[in-house]
């Protein structure tokens, strides 16, 4: 579904992303994990067309989409959410979601009905006619997902939709993401909460300092000495091995 080849991006002297290649098979849930500042969000931004890569290529559903504008990529069926939620603050929750629904539905009545259905499915039912600015952090995260889902994507890029949520909210959203995948949407997610990644993803790619250092099932990746070092510092893996 998605093929990323040797993506690289430099910001001034900082090589934010050095060389990232990964595949997201159709129907899968794939995770991109890594310590803060590893370049995960930059990778996402390049895949979704928000940041132009210095080099590398992105293919989505058989189409070369490198350097495409975000709206064209969305129209093709790949939609991202934002780590820092970006609601249309002056609109109601339902109106926010409807902006997404308008991508595939030109009829206003139809788009409104779609938006309300998606919002209700994501547990935003009681909030639909409230201003988006009135939502809690968890509510805003749900709104991000709802808006993206309303565009009826084939591939959904979720950027830390669980950050800032409490454990029961995390469980709810894990169930929700699984449900979305079962509905036929492929998912690539960035996440810090390992428990959620382990519960959801078939494959976890680990990014550190702009390069992929491990790929495998979430448990394999988490146990990889290079990954332990990336998270906990040089020599950590050896120290942990000694303690065992």
């Amino acid at each position, binding site marked *: 579904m998605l093929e990323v080849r040797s993506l690289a991006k430099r910001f001034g002297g900082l090589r934010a992303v050095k060389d990232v290649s990964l595949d997201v098979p159709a129907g899968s849930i794939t995770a991109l994990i890594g310590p803060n500042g590893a370049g995960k969000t930059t990778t996402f931004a390049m895949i*979704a067309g*928000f940041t132009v890569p210095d080099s590398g290529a992105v293919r989505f559903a058989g189409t070369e989409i490198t350097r495409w*504008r*975000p*709206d*064209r990529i*969305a*129209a093709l069926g790949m*939609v*991202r*959410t*934002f780590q820092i939620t*970006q*609601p*249309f*603050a*002056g*609109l*109601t929750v339902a*109106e926010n979601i*409807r*902006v*997404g629904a*308008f*991508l595939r539905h*030109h009829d*206003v009545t139809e*788009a409104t009905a779609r938006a309300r259905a998606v919002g209700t499915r994501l547990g935003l039912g009681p909030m639909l006619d409230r*201003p988006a*600015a*009135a939502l809690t952090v968890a509510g805003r995260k749900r709104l991000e997902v709802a*808006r*993206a889902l309303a*565009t009826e994507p084939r591939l959904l890029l979720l950027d830390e939709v669980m950050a800032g949520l409490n454990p029961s909210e995390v469980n709810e959203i894990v169930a929700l993401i699984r449900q979305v995948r079962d509905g036929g949407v492929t998912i690539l997610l960035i996440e810090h909460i390992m428990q959620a990644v382990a519960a959801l993803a078939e494959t976890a790619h680990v990014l550190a300092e702009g390069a992929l250092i491990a790929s495998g099932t979430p448990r394999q990746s988490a146990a990889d000495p290079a990954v332990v070092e990336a998270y906990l510092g040089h020599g950590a893996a050896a120290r942990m091995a000694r303690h065992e």
Partner: protein
Amino acid sequence: MLKYWPVLLVVAALLPLASSSQFLVNLAMLTAFSALLGQGWNIACGFGGLTSFGHAVFFGIGAYAVAIMQTRFGINPWFGLPAAAVLGAAAGAVLGAAAFRAGLRGSYFALVTLAFAEVFRILANSLEITKGGLGILIPLHPALANFQFDDRREAYALVLAVLAVAMGVAAWLRRSRFGARLVAVRENEDAAAALGIPLVRTKTQALALSGAVTATAGVLYAQMFLYVDPSIAFGADRSVEMLLVAMIGGAGTVWGPVLGAIVLHLIQDTARLLIDTPGFAPMLYGAILLVIIAFMPNGIAGLRLPALRRNRVRDA
């Protein structure tokens, strides 16, 4: 009763048509004309958040287009009207395509529009076809067929009709897919792009639509006063009046410009009675603008009158 205030407003607007008072008709006409200008600005800038400080450029293009067409080429102004609207739309499309493709927004876009209007003012001042600083005098031939009016009430009725169309456009923006996507662009460009909205195209279309409405207002002006010169057409105070009317009333709402025009004219005419110094009006405009921005960023509509509810609610 308060719920039906738009109905009352429409009735109040129609009353002068039955009045023989020149003063009343004139006042109503100028107010309705301001509302039309404000609505022209509002379509792109209220709904789309495009901060134009140079909307006079579209007004002037409309006014000059119809004046030049009839004085030079003998084209009847009734045909000049749609032609001027198309020119206004084209100017909006060109300005939009250039500015938005270059990624200009906010104050940068405001500066570019201001400069754009200034360039047109200077051109109108120096070109032969616009008769330079002398301006163009449209020969007086009062007849409905010539788009000139003996009776002010006829002119007023026409302004009201065009205002109704402009408000129809705004009402369509509130209800349509295009309008919803335009508002989304205003609220958050990144999120809008992520949801598949083409930013440059959407904003350019809004500016073209706004340009057409504002150019039509320019045509009405030329035909009512039968005279256009560079500062009447492209002057910065015209641009300021437009955005002021929309912002006082409530940018991004259907009725905002109407409310804004009424309030602005009340203030203006009262002030003129008290102080009759040239240059006082722009000072007053500046002061009002500051007060609005500081204390009521959503205008009168932000005060949540019934029928205006569900409007721009900023971060709670």
